[in-house]
């Protein structure tokens, strides 16, 4: 069964940093508590996405000509079109759902950890106590019942919007236009281009500053794009090794 590809549009220009998305996600998905720490980084005490944080609200305090600007953004798994985590997974635990999202099958994952350094955004991680990889499922169970993902449902300002990905992209461009006309020239979309290094993200963002300010890579590329050249280099090195072994063997008497 294939249905329309769905995704998020996170409009950070209306995020108020309430963290209702973080809480709703934890509640619905039964994600364990991951430390009650004070980081000292504005109101962000979660730090980053990880095995036990599937929505993460970033807080950035900027001094702009003496006036303070507060950027807030709810980050989430990008559900990439070319998802490196899925491609490198050796067990097939990570798979593409009928909604076009990327999900870990917990009954298959053996905790090899390959997806962790493969993700160009540092989203997925292995949970210490249970040994398996975890990340946002885009509420796979809720989607099956035609419900909105918990984070989008809980968002009070519609900063997190959910729907068919094409519609999300359209809304993102419309909103960008409105902000540009209003003079917010630094507003930019992130992950909306199907021609980018990951084939376009399944979660599109509208940011008010450069991606790296929010802890996002400015030009992510799925590592498996270069897999052909890697195997060619390995074949070359393997052939050289074989030649070396032959040379050593035939080089003369013992």
């Amino acid at each position, binding site marked *: 069964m294939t249905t329309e590809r769905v995704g998020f549009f996170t409009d950070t220009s209306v995020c108020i940093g309430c963290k209702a998305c973080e809480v709703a996600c934890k509640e619905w998905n039964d994600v364990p508590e991951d430390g009650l720490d004070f980081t000292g*980084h504005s109101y*962000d005490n979660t730090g*980053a996405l990880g095995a036990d944080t599937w929505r993460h609200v970033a807080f*950035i305090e900027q001094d702009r000509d003496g006036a303070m600007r507060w950027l807030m953004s709810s980050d989430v798994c990008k559900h990439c079109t070319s998802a490196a985590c899925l*491609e*490198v*997974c*050796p*067990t*097939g*635990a990570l798979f593409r759902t009928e909604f076009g999202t990327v999900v870990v099958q917990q009954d*298959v*994952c*053996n*905790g*090899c*950890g*390959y997806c*962790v*350094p*493969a*993700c*160009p*955004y*540092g*989203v997925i991680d292995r949970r210490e106590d249970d*040994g*398996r*990889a975890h990340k946002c499922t885009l509420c796979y169970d809720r989607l099956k019942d035609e419900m909105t993902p918990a984070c989008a449902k809980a968002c009070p300002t519609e900063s997190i919007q959910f729907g068919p990905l094409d519609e999300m992209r359209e809304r993102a461009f419309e909103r960008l236009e409105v902000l540009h006309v209003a003079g917010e020239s630094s507003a930019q979309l992130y992950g909306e281009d199907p021609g980018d290094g990951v084939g376009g993200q399944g979660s599109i963002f509208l940011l008010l500053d*450069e991606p*790296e*300010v*929010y*802890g996002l890579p*400015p*030009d992510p590329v799925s*590592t*498996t794009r*270069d*897999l052909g*050249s*890697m*195997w060619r*280099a*390995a*074949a*070359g*090195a*393997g052939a050289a*090794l*074989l030649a*070396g*072994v*032959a*040379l*050593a*063997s*035939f*080089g003369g*008497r013992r």
Partner: protein
Amino acid sequence: MSDSYYGRPILKEPVWTWEIPVYFFFGGMAGAAAPFALISELRGDEALARRAWLVALAGVAASPPLLIADLGRPERFHHMLRVLKPTSPMSVGSWILGASSTAVAFANARSLFGWFPRLGRLAGATAVLGPALSTYTAVLMADTAIPVWHEARGELPFVFASGAAMSAGSAMALIGGGAPARRLALMGAAGELTSTTVMERRLGPLGEPYHEGAAGRAARAAKALTAAGALMMALRGRRRAGTVAGGALMLAGALGTRWSVYKAGFQSAADPKYVVEPQRARMAARAEASAR
């Protein structure tokens, strides 16, 4: 200095532990010793072939326990063989290791006890593909978002292949492999010193981890051990003491290089500048190209 979110890493550090670089050492050694054994057999030197098969056996026997111990769910190790996935070097590698260890076991059964004479020969012949076991691990590392690994994708296989030759040659020399084993070890040492230097140079600023912290210490130690071992083997290799000292130093050197590559990945993931700066440079180059 590029912008960042409170200096926090963008990438996640690998969750792999010490077993992985140690596996690279043992698997690599087996992948080089197996074709050496095959060629020795073809040359009619059964005594040398037997020693080489034993080294290959030691390598493949040590590998699975190390890999399984590193899993988050070791009891599910067999899920590795649920699928064969060309896009996953770890999946391809699991099959390579599975096939290699089976072949090496049969080849040893034949060479040691004369069991399975035909199957043993046939299994031994597959050692032509042994080098795949030594080099796929480089693809495994390169096929990640870690800049110091991914951007070394052209050089890492040569680092791993030469380290494999060095360790297999050294191990065989230690158990009476004679001049052919010593020659393999020396060729491997030369290859490793060259390929790591080329890799570090080509990485440019991304190669910083190889000069700092734990990775830097391991890289320097590995080079010193390799050079000292090779010198010892080249000058005093005809004597037992020289072979033992040289071989032991080079084995330590090969392990040290793998350790440095492993550790460099953590240092590379920890600092967001290694992610942001090359990506910004790429974007700038693209913008310039399209403006022209």
